[in-house]
């Protein structure tokens, strides 16, 4: 007999299916774990580290989006230690590039801004880096502002996994990493981009936006993406 597929998350007992992640179980149990790089329907990469949880019996923290649920697991999602780590992660993201909320297209509609408020961040304890980063407005419909990019790679994954174009990728290492289109060519000159706009819809910040959007003017329509994802799932089930 196989062990019963049950685990505990924040003292709530949760049943799970084979292969489910801890994050998926937590969400089903109504336990909120903050995320930035995760998006339902895309593969998970554990990049942003916001979804870190404590696993009883393990000295290491685990990124819940890439950790499989196992029978008997005991997970804690909201400890003082985790709250502090999440705060530090968000502060590092804010310090790393030029997130000037007041003049950003995504002001009022930004997952990073919302998470900062949720975590009571009233200032950043690290020195701002103020890197010199560009804005690419070569595409006829969309723009990319690297000042606002947090390298979550949702754009890379939706373009590859849902649209099937793989226009986006990441170039460089460490602090000099950038999202690129094709072989780091201007977006407008990309041979592979289908101008579907899925990357723009999924961007959590103001890094990708429809051209002509003014400050705080970004409106997203995630329903369109969910439809495309459902279509992909249908295709993969029924060939």
């Amino acid at each position, binding site marked *: 007999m196989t062990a019963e597929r049950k685990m505990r998350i924040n003292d709530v007992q949760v049943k799970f299916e084979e292969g489910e992640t801890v994050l998926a179980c937590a969400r089903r149990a109504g336990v909120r774990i903050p995320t930035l790089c995760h998006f339902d329907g895309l593969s998970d990469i554990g990049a942003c580290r916001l979804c870190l949880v404590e696993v009883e019996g393990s000295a290491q923290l685990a990124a819940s989006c890439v950790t499989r649920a196992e029978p008997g697991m005991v997970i804690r999602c909201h400890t003082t230690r985790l709250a502090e780590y999440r705060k530090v992660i968000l502060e590092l993201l804010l310090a790393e590039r030029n997130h000037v909320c007041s003049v950003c297209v995504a002001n009022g509609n930004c997952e990073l801004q919302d998470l900062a408020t949720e975590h009571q961040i009233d*200032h950043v304890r690290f020195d701002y880096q103020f890197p*010199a*980063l560009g804005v690419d407005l070569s595409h006829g419909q969309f723009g990319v502002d690297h000042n606002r990019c947090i390298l979550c790679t949702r754009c890379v994954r939706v373009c590859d996994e849902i649209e099937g174009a793989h226009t986006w990728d990441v170039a460089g290492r460490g602090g000099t990493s950038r999202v690129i289109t094709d072989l780091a060519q201007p977006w407008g000159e990309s041979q592979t981009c289908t101008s579907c706009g899925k990357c723009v819809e999924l961007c959590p910040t103001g890094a990708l936006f429809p051209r002509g959007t003014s400050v705080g003017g970004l409106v997203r329509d995630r329903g369109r993406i969910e439809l495309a994802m459902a279509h992909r799932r249908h295709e993969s089930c029924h060939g």
Partner: protein
Amino acid sequence: MSRLRFATAWLAGCSGCHMSFLDLDEWLADLGRLVEIVYCPIIDVKEYPDHVDVALVEGAVANEDNREMARRIRDRTRVVVAFGDCAVTGNVTAMRNPLGSARTVLERSYLELPTLAPAIPAAPGILPVLEDRVRPLQEVIAVDGFLPGCPPPAGMIREFLEGVIAGGPPVARRPRFG
């Protein structure tokens, strides 16, 4: 019990935070009864006084005058509050930082772009010299509280001040950038 000695100051910012402060409308009359306003850009006091209990400081540190004022405020104030995004993060004021030194920005603004009499303004003792890097307040002096926002909404300023006047910590309940 004597009233708190309260100040507000304006460094490198657009004064929008003070506009938001003025949006407190009739509550400002109540504030005038609750605290003693000893220094503020909108009252006629020239010198930042000694023994200030609480100061809201708008704006980043962008030039030598801002730096000197920030130090004076720190020396003479018990609770210094970074007031608004420019003081807290650098915000729009710091958007010149990625472009390079003050010289780069001045050359672009006053030599390359103007068509009429291009010259970098220089008036020692009158015009404060720009620093190469704009800094949020906490990179220059120790800061005790933070009230972010561009500008912080009037209601948030009021809630913050009511907390401080009641003897609570200088903490914004739902801080929000932008």
